[in-house]
């Protein structure tokens, strides 16, 4: 397949399958299989794209054959291709988990088409080479996520989706303003073109102001301090499959966008932005983990950990060295898998105990030993205990901070790691280790069992974590190459703009 086909296929597949799914009769199995096959295809295309980019360098395609910077550009460097691959894998995991956990009536409805639209939006955001299109893809993704959040229409979900929607839309307004202002100043929105035009611009102050708009908008999407409050207000209400999808993909698009614009477009004021990002990252880590320590609802606790891990990513971006960007990419991949594993397991424990409240759980270690193991590995990995993937990812962040002689970030990262371990152990103690509470309501007529196929996706995620931990070297090499591309945008610009300056 030509690179242009590979670049456009993830988007065409997802949106086409979403539309086809909506046209299918209202039965569970055709929609389920369509979604499964599409996600598999996206993962395969992502892998092919990654191989192509690794072998032949950055790939770009102009939709409709209109040359950049006028047309719609799709472009994949190593980071984009890697993220598309991970998106496909996560889509596959979440769809198979949904098939095992959701009632058939939900599956027969608009659920899978919406998941496909969301994944299509995420792929579009990772692959686009144009800021306005990035905005559009983020909106596509958010639009699907609003509906997914409120699909069951329970009261708490509607409350959550009102908070989530109003704050997300506020972020979108800021983003749109930023895009408009930037177009007014630079006269182009093509990322590669911007990276050529902006260094020679005669309005540096205005550009700094615009870059702050982007920082605020994407930090809100990423869930960074002090704009994270929409996340713990909403992520604990939808079914576990949906929470997993959100936690794996939505905030990561914000982080990806930050990484993209502050390495490719706004590189001139790196002192200012990197200070801001470092402060933001440090505070995000600390507030996230402190919020988590106080929680006794399993999913709320895990939601706060999303925030604290986002802090590591933003701090790594703030350091802006090759080592730090390598750490960022490795951490991003590790953390998508680790967090998803934990959310999937939290859904599985809730199927057994019928609650997310840690006070009311207990004894799962004896009744569900396999589930306990599947929690233990990602929990340790998230906290950064060797030999799992989290150890190498966190080590890379801390090393990068030490090398940049930024003791504050390095110290914060270590302390937050310990606090993460503490709150993971809290879940372990409460849900798996302690004796069940005395007054637990006994429901003899409702057998508490997991059901078929729930553990499969959890096992896959855990396996990834062990593989990425024991065999960390290939991932680190890939991340290092991707970081090299981020720091030297010449190849990216050349691929998009062709021979022209």
């Amino acid at each position, binding site marked *: 397949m*030509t690179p*242009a*086909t590979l670049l*456009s296929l993830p988007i*065409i597949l997802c*949106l*086409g399958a*979403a*539309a*086809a*799914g*909506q*046209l299918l009769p*209202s039965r569970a199995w055709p929609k389920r299989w369509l979604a499964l096959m599409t996600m598999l295809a996206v993962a395969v295309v992502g892998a092919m794209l990654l191989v192509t980019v690794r072998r032949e360098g950055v790939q770009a*395609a*102009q*939709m*409709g*054959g209109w040359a950049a910077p006028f047309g719609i550009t799709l472009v994949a460097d190593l980071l984009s291709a890697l993220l598309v691959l991970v998106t496909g894998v996560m889509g596959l995991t979440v769809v198979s988990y949904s098939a095992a956990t959701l*009632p058939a*009536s*939900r599956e*027969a*409805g*608009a659920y899978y*088409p919406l998941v496909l639209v969301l994944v299509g939006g995420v792929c579009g955001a990772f692959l686009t080479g144009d800021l306005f299109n990035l905005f559009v893809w983020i909106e596509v993704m958010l639009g699907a996520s609003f*509906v997914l959040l409120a*699909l*069951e229409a329970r009261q708490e979900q509607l409350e959550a989706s009102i908070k989530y929607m109003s704050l997300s839309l506020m972020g979108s307004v800021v983003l749109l303003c930023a895009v408009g202002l930037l177009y007014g100043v630079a006269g182009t929105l093509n990322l590669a073109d911007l990276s050529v035009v902006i260094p020679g611009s005669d309005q540096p102050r205005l550009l700094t102001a615009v870059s702050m708009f982007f920082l605020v908008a994407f930090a809100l999407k990423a869930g960074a301090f002090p704009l994270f409050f929409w996340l713990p207000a909403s992520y604990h209400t939808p079914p576990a499959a949906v929470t997993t999808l959100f936690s794996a993909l939505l905030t990561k698009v914000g982080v990806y966008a930050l990484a993209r614009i502050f390495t490719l477009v706004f590189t001139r004021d790196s002192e200012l932005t990197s200070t801001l990002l470092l402060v933001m990252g440090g505070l995000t880590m600390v507030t996230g983990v402190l919020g988590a320590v106080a929680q006794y609802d399993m999913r709320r606790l895990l939601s706060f950990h999303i925030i604290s891990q986002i802090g590591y990513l933003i701090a790594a971006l703030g350091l802006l060295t090759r080592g730090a960007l390598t750490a960022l990419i490795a951490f991003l991949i590790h953390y998508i898998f680790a967090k998803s594993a934990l959310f999937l397991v939290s859904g599985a424990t809730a199927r057994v105990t019928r609650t997310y409240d840690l006070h009311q759980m207990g004894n799962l270690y004896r009744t569900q030993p396999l589930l306990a193991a599947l929690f233990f590995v990602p929990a340790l990995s998230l906290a950064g205990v060797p030999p799992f993937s989290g150890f190498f990812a966190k080590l890379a962040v801390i090393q990068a901070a030490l090398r940049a002689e930024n003791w504050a970030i390095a110290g914060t990262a270590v302390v937050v790691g310990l606090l993460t371990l503490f709150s993971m152990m809290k879940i372990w103690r409460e849900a798996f280790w302690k004796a069940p509470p005395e007054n637990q309501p006994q429901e003899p007529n409702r057998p508490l069992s997991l059901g078929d196929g729930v553990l499969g996706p959890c096992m896959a995620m855990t396996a990834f974590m062990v593989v990425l931990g024991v065999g960390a070297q290939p991932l680190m090499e890939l991340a290092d190459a991707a970081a090299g591309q981020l720091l030297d945008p010449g190849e990216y610009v050349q691929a998009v703009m062709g021979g022209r300056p």
Partner: protein
Amino acid sequence: MSPVVMHTVARMMAPVLLLVSLVLAVRGHDIPGGGFVGGLMAATAFALQMVAFGRPAARKQLRVHPTRLAAAGLLVALGSGIPAMLGGREFLSSIWGQLPLPWSDSLKVGTPQLFDVGVYLAVLGTAMAFILGMGRGEDTTAPDSRA
């Protein structure tokens, strides 16, 4: 008492609005207009029916479920980009041909027109899903989400 003026106007205006929407959609390739505006204009025709005769009547006149219409439109629009890809060019590249007409010169047809048809259907379907949804509040988000 039935609102005679409203009913009469709605009945008379519906074909006019639909015709204008088609004109807008077709002329849109070279002059202002296009599938998006055309689709919105068509939605106003059905919205007017809803105001005059109520939601069930408007839904019945649309015949197809609105989200299915939107999905079909999306498929058509995506499909218009595929032939170029099969021919080895980039997705959505336009392919033009001449359609000979017996009574005059040949007509220029191509994939961008198919794209506009898709956009027209998608916009009409989406707008009607919203409008019918406001009319009652249920039953329009998905053809089958009644769990």
